[in-house]
């Protein structure tokens, strides 16, 4: 062994080999400079929970975000620069997300961050980006991000619980309705409940029961007798992900649908796909996007077509669409600003009017909330479905309006 190493070490290095080696080293060292000369790539960090209970939604987000990047690069880049998406797994853990975001900013030198899929995670990312004056487009529901956690560098592209529940309640609650709530005991559930109760008060609906269930619960049978005996005519289930399919399935098994209508804040595409159509039949809920919008809206049609072309005929889902609108609106603003200088991009985002998937959208100046259309969907019966993807009927598509949001002064902003 040692002999081998010695002969290797004592073997003279030929001049030719040395020259090739030197050229190689010089080439490697000068690479970054050559690359920089062609104008720097616009790098967008994308932390999202690729592992964990929201992995299906996260993968949809990534695919849609990649579509937005591809479309930008196909037309020659943004402001003459190529765009790159750096996807990182945040494991649905706020600490992990903060670390990944730090890495994206410090090591990968990203120009903006888009992403996150839970309230806690987006607030963690927001905290890191705010301290470092980094642009951040948040694409997950939260009310807090518009109030206490507001950052001038953060824009909230997702719906927020206030606007979702305001629109859903308008189309499902009536004066005198008796509502029972089944709520996941964490930030998402609490914010949705708060929104629904605010809307119910305006409409004149009354709350008859309010039950909290733990996040990720598998068994809902203990809650259902209370709901059945409450005399409610609407059951409002405020939870997310797998919890939604599980709780609705068990409520239906217990015959809840015979007595009352089931309403959810966000009717999830992937959760409906996870169970039989009979389970969700007649369930009403909100959505930021549904592919069926293409029948009436040209921008939805072009988004769907581009998605189908890139992903072999599949269709974008609700949370997936956030990935597209989030990245695409950011790129439009960078284009307008002529570069990635944060203050200029912020000004451009505040002034931006965009219609890329779901009708007219714009960011409200005071809290940077995206004012956008909110859909109300009803899950179809099996016999009414024209294809496997034909899941929902669009009950209403409320166009963007400030009236469903809390006012700026209510949120504590001047003006």
């Amino acid at each position, binding site marked *: 062994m040692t002999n081998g190493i010695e002969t290797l070490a004592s073997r003279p290095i030929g001049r030719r080999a040395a020259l090739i080696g030197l050229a190689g080293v010089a080439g490697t060292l000068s690479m970054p400079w050559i690359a920089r000369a062609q104008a720097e790539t616009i790098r967008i960090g994308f932390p999202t929970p690729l*592992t964990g209970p929201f992995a299906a939604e996260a993968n949809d987000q990534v695919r849609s975000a990649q579509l937005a990047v591809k479309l930008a690069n196909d037309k020659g880049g943004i402001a003459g620069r190529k765009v790159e998406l750096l996807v990182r797994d945040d494991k649905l853990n*706020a*600490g992990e997300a*903060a670390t990944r975001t*730090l*890495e994206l900013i410090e*090591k990968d030198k990203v120009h903006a961050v888009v992403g996150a899929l839970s309230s806690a995670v987006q607030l963690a990312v927001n*905290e890191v980006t705010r301290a470092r004056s980094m642009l951040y487009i948040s694409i997950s529901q939260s009310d807090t991000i518009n109030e206490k956690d507001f950052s001038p560098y953060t824009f909230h592209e997702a719906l927020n619980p206030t606007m979702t529940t305001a629109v859903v309640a308008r189309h499902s609650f009536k004066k005198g309705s008796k509502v029972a709530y089944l709520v996941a005991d*964490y930030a998402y559930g609490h914010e949705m409940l708060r929104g629904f109760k605010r809307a119910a008060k305006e409409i004149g609906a009354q709350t008859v029961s309010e039950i909290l269930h733990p996040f990720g619960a598998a068994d809902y049978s203990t809650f259902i007798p209370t709901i059945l005996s409450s005399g409610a005519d609407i059951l409002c289930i405020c939870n997310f992900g797998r919890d939604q399919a599980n709780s609705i399935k068990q409520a239906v098994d217990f015959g809840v649908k015979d007595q009352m209508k089931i309403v959810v804040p966000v009717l999830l595409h992937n959760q409906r796909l996870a169970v039989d159509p009979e389970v969700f039949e007649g369930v009403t809920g909100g959505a930021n996007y549904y592919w069926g919008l293409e029948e009436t809206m040209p921008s939805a049609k072009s988004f769907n077509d581009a998605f189908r072309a890139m992903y072999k005929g599949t269709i974008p889902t609700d949370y997936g669409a956030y990935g597209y609108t989030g990245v695409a609106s950011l790129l439009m603003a960078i284009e307008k600003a002529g570069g990635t200088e944060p203050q200029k991009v912020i000004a451009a985002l505040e002034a931006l009017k965009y219609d890329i998937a779901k009708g007219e959208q714009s960011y409200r100046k005071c809290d940077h909330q995206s004012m956008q259309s909110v859909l109300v969907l009803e899950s179809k019966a099996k016999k009414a479905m024209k294809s496997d993807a034909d899941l929902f009927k669009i009950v209403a598509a409320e166009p963007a309006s400030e009236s469903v949001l809390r006012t700026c002064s209510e949120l504590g902003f001047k003006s």
Partner: protein
Amino acid sequence: MSFIRNAELVPAPARRSLATLFSNVSRWRVPLSILALCIMPWVLPSQALAVNVLIYGLVAVGYNLLFGYTGLLSFGHAAFFGAGAYATGIAIGAFGVHWFIAMLIGVLVSGLLATVMGMLAIRTRGIYFSMVTLALAQLVYYAALQASSWTGGENGLRGFTVSTLHLPGFSVNFLDPLVKYYAIMIVVAAALWFVSRVLNSPFGAVIEAIRENETRARACGYDVERTKLLSFILSGILCGLAGTLSAMHLSIVPLDSLHYHTSGLIVMMTLLGGAGSFFGPFIGALAFLSMEDIFSLWTSNWQLIVGVIFILFVLYLPKGIWGTLISWGKSR
């Protein structure tokens, strides 16, 4: 078997020099560890990862004092880590306390919590000790979840970003990743020196005696209960210190830092690196976090790879990475 064969191959002087090398390594363990920490941010893929290695390394070293040296398997150390982090965050965010005082408060709170939990837990032994620590830690977790006006509940604690470290006479930019790394490293290095001193002291010998044979240690006249409690508190304080550093580093405190997953992670890192060795837990944290960082870029099934590696270690190298290296060196 194998070491006899090896011994025949290696000539006598070389064998002696290897042995002296290892005894030198253990004598100079603190300066050598600090040297290793100094070069870490230049070797690892990112500074954020390097800071996490520092923090989790310190947690694992603190945990090892109780698990590796005293022989008590606790499943509740996330409570001290989280308590230190929350106390620091709340002190800065809600009361506007200077960062240094806030860190002291964090350490103090975790020390107090460790005293209470320790007094309850050391009455039990073996599996019951693990279960009691787990249960008490879950109690802390749910307390933090419910007291959301203080802790931010599910959303975690926010709003206490420290962007500049004000020290008497000068101040440094804490947002600069390298500055942050070395600032945190100074604290971790001091803690490592402290642990080394504790292990070299008579107290260090007593806790090892308790691990080896509790009855015998008692027969020798040592107060076993008090020693165990002291070891529990010291271990809790070190984890609390790591928690305060984590709060300063991430500028958030996630609720997950109190979760039993974190406790499990600490045990895993300690086992991977080598329980009962001074620097082993640090190596464990380094190995675990680097694997996580690198594999999760390749595949979203990274947990599978890390899990298989962990199982292989438990089956074939129960002394962990560092422990195996050391016993291999000593056998020469």
